[in-house]
């Protein structure tokens, strides 16, 4: 059951005044333009025990994603495809407002939205990750831990998952005498496309991209849109209790395509993918 609750962060009226002052000059509290992202940093291969890993900093929001590959049964109805499971946890280290315990509805939404972007875009060619059709397939786990929460966990987590997958060295398994064996060789993740998500929030009449925690505390509504390398839309989620006009949604969608291309290029550059 989902119920309304009060916001964890109460924004000081002085900060709101400053925010509106800045907005009247087309700027935000941290000096950014409405359509500007915070600095993006990506560090790869930080968890040696994982098959792939990435630490992403989007402004002060920090997320670590780790890829672990095992073998298992395929999902029902998807006998000829490897299994992909994307999960996320907002660790209690990340913010004074996080209670340790099973994931709350916001964390579950975060994990599912990020998963949807990766899955629906078909980023991984899961048909290449099958050992015995219908019986034994590769299971790719991507787990994310949010280390510091300062807004826009959706995009930071998504970029971490994408970066980790782009740089992973998956094991090469083979069936030998009916048993799964690790050949010791590695392969790159079979990638078909690079999904990129972009999250924006509406505050009053303006729409701001890549919100900080403070901006999220002032938001009326939020929208996360994922596009693939061809600029097609593959996943979308509107969040929070306010609404959008149709025009705002169309503009946000267009921005996701255009900005998405820039971010995709940046991720490719920072991960050295394809080199």
């Amino acid at each position, binding site marked *: 059951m989902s119920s309304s609750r009060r916001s964890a962060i*109460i924004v*000081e*009226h*002085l900060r*709101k005044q*400053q925010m509106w002052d800045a907005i009247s000059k087309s700027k935000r509290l941290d000096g950014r333009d409405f359509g500007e992202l915070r600095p993006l940093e990506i560090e790869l291969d930080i968890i040696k025990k994982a098959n792939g890993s990435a630490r992403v900093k989007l402004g002060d929001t920090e997320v670590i994603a780790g890829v672990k590959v095992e073998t298992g049964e395929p999902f029902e109805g998807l006998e000829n495809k490897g299994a992909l499971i994307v999960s996320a946890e907002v660790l209690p280290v990340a913010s004074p407002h996080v209670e340790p315990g099973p994931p709350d509805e916001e964390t579950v939404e975060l994990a599912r939205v990020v998963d949807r972007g990766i899955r629906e875009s078909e980023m991984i060619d899961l048909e290449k990750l099958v050992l015995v059709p219908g019986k034994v397939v590769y299971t790719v786990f991507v787990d994310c831990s949010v280390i510091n929460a300062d807004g826009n966990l959706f995009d930071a987590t998504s970029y971490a998952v994408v970066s980790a997958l782009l740089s992973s060295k998956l094991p090469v398994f083979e069936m030998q005498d009916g048993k799964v064996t690790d050949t010791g060789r590695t392969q790159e993740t079979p990638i078909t496309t690079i999904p990129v998500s972009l999250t924006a929030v509406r505050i009053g009449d303006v729409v701001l991209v890549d919100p900080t925690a403070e901006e999220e505390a002032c938001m009326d509504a939020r929208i996360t849109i994922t596009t693939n390398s061809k600029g097609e839309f593959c996943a979308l989620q509107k969040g929070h209790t306010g609404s959008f006009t149709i025009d705002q949604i169309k503009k946000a969608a267009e921005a996701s395509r255009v900005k998405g291309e820039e971010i995709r290029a940046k991720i490719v550059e920072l991960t050295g993918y394809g080199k």
Partner: protein
Amino acid sequence: MQEIRRKYVIPGDKIIEGNFRPLSNVIRSGNMLIATRIGIAEVGRDGAKVIPLSGVYIPRVNDLVIGKIIDHSSLSWEVDINSCFSAHLPAQDVFGRDFSPARDDMSKHLAIGDMITARILAFDRTRDPMLTLQEKDLGKIPRGELLKISATRVPRLIGKRGSMIQTIEQATQTRVLIGQNGIVVVTGRNSEGTKLAVRAIRMVEEEAHTANLTQKIRALLNVPETTQEQAPNTAPPKSQEVETAIEEVEEELEVEKGEKL
């Protein structure tokens, strides 16, 4: 100079041995006085203490604090004072003795999110801090730029008899409200002045423990050196600079509770 001995300490470090009184952030263990926080240990005639460099603000009666209204019941407002406890401000303090929840609308007066300057009237181990606005210059803060600094740096930011903050205010044409709880509000005529004041405040926060901070602040603000803060009546010895630096730190750090409206 008095016999003040000083050194950098972390918890568990031995400060000094002997019959000294343990003051703030110092405990006695046998014949030793031990630091309980990271900071600068000082031994003087009245005892040994550690000036802490980190830690959440712990409320003290009579402190001036800047708080944020986060909730209200029918009888009081709940105020976030950037500490381990929420404070409360009784409605009676603002509306008077004949306050009536039916007639007096609390949120019209102070709404959630409003910032106030208040004084801590009461606080002890058994209850949450209680605030009052019954004093000149206390009340809702109408405008200004908000910053949070570590409460441990507030004495340094104020300076002895307000010297540090006055230097900043005069050089940047701003008025700076400082709460003992580390909340600071800067109001200025122009945005460049305000921005510069904010930078100066951040510099004090980061370098509170260093000796030549006042010079660095002056340099940032383009303020010429004055003779006021030099060693008053000694002939210049070879280590004049070191002497001056030590005195500055002494002056600034001796301020346990500066007051500033």
